[in-house]
């Protein structure tokens, strides 16, 4: 009889707590979004499954000795996984559109206003009982506005590891929701005439420009913002491997096998942070809300900057491409293209929008470096 009792006590049914059940349902929700709705499936499948695994009673996946514990501390706490992902993203990125039209860098810069404005929002939430965000917490939350998953995870793991789960879920959710969040803001801030603007064809970019560009970016980061060199350095390494043309095997590995392997473990590691005690609180609601605000402000400031550029520049600039400044490559550029096509069926903005889009990746990495340098101590 005693043995039966011991057996019963070792089952999951006898050990379940309400919080664990809810978090498993959250994990199932993420799986549903990934599988049925195709929302960022590459990350949400391992993340959702990680959330289920970490909340299994008795198994101790996230305790010392458990798989997810080591995955988290080896890859996310150290910042290795997001940096490897960044290298892969660099290997997948073509800076041609940006080099051909360098002023689109200002659109990527303007869209980072979403990050810094959200800092205010996060601090303002402290006036409401139940919220206690420090400047470090607020900075980690605000980076959601950069719409760059690896950057958000990297910064959160350094500044506010206890909020990592909620920040990662918010960042990837809003990135998946780009086609829903952005178009109304873009339409509200532009006129029909502006959306119809056709832009001049981009010039051809030579190989030497593409090879020197990542080296130049790295050199400038070394000089002016060394705190951003982990992110920018890995990004530039990936991009140089792609463009130099002599290490195609390495470039191919970085943008395929390696990024896929790391994505599995990154998702599992982030999922392991989706435990009831860290996720089921009022702060998570605040983070989800602030993420949406950050994203919307980033989109709006990008569009407004493009409008200003259109007024001041001799060449015509379609303000819709400003919305692509919020990273989320290449989804944001596709959205700009789609909204442009709705206004003018002969207007293909995709390549023009890729400029601010990749500028946004650099911009959010620079913003992350600034936040690390100023509040990271």
């Amino acid at each position, binding site marked *: 009889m005693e043995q039966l009792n011991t057996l019963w006590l070792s089952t999951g049914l006898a050990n379940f707590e309400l919080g664990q059940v809810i978090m498993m349902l959250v994990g199932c929700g993420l799986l549903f979004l990934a599988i049925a709705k195709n929302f960022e499936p590459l990350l949400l499948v391992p993340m959702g499954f990680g959330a289920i695994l970490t909340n299994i009673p008795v198994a101790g996946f996230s305790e010392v000795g458990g798989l997810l514990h080591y995955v988290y501390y080896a890859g996310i706490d150290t910042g290795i996984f997001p940096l490897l992902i960044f290298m892969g993203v660099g290997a997948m990125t073509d800076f041609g559109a940006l080099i051909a039209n360098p002023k689109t860098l200002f659109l990527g*810069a303007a869209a980072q206003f979403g990050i*810094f404005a959200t800092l205010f929002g996060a601090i303002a939430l402290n006036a409401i009982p139940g919220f206690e965000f420090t400047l470090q917490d607020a*900075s980690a939350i605000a980076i959601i506005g950069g719409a760059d998953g690896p950057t958000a995870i990297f910064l959160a793991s350094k500044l506010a590891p206890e909020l990592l789960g909620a920040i990662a879920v918010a960042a990837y959710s809003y990135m998946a929701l780009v086609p829903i969040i952005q178009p109304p803001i873009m339409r509200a801030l532009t006129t029909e005439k502006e959306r119809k603007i056709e832009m001049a064809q981009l010039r051809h970019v030579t*190989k030497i420009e593409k090879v020197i560009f990542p080296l*130049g*970016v790295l050199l*400038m980061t070394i000089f002016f913002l060394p705190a951003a060199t982990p992110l920018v350095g890995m990004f530039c390494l990936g991009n140089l491997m792609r463009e130099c043309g002599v290490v195609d095997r390495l470039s191919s590995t970085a943008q395929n096998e390696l990024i896929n392997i790391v994505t599995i473990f990154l998702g599992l590691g982030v999922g392991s942070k989706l435990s009831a005690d860290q996720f089921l609180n009022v702060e998570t609601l605040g983070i989800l809300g602030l993420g949406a605000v950050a994203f919307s402000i980033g989109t709006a400031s990008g569009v407004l900057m493009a409008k200003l550029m259109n007024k001041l520049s001799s060449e015509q600039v379609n303000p819709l491409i400003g919305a692509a400044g919020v990273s989320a490559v290449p989804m944001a550029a596709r959205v700009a293209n789609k909204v442009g096509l709705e206004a003018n069926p002969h207007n293909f903005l995709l390549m023009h929008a890729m400029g601010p889009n990749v500028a946004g990746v650099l911009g959010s990495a620079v913003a992350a470096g600034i936040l690390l340098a100023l509040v990271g101590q």
Partner: protein
Amino acid sequence: MDSLLQTFIEAGTLMLAGMVFVFAFLGLLVIFINLVLVKLANKYPDPIIQSKSKPKAKKTNIASNGVTPQVVAAIGSAVTQYKQKHGDKA
């Protein structure tokens, strides 16, 4: 309340410094592209475009005819030989 105000001031400073720095950094990058990369591009134009067009033309020939250059050469030489033989007989 004072500490909240203090944090607000810190956040404001951070926002201002952050945006100024992001614009300055990416602005420098614009200058770098315009001054360095464009000059480099003018000095070292892409050789790939010229060299690539030739093999491409060859490839399309092969694809559209479905005959390799070796076969064309073999037929050519056979025709010449036939003509020579035919000419001899005549």
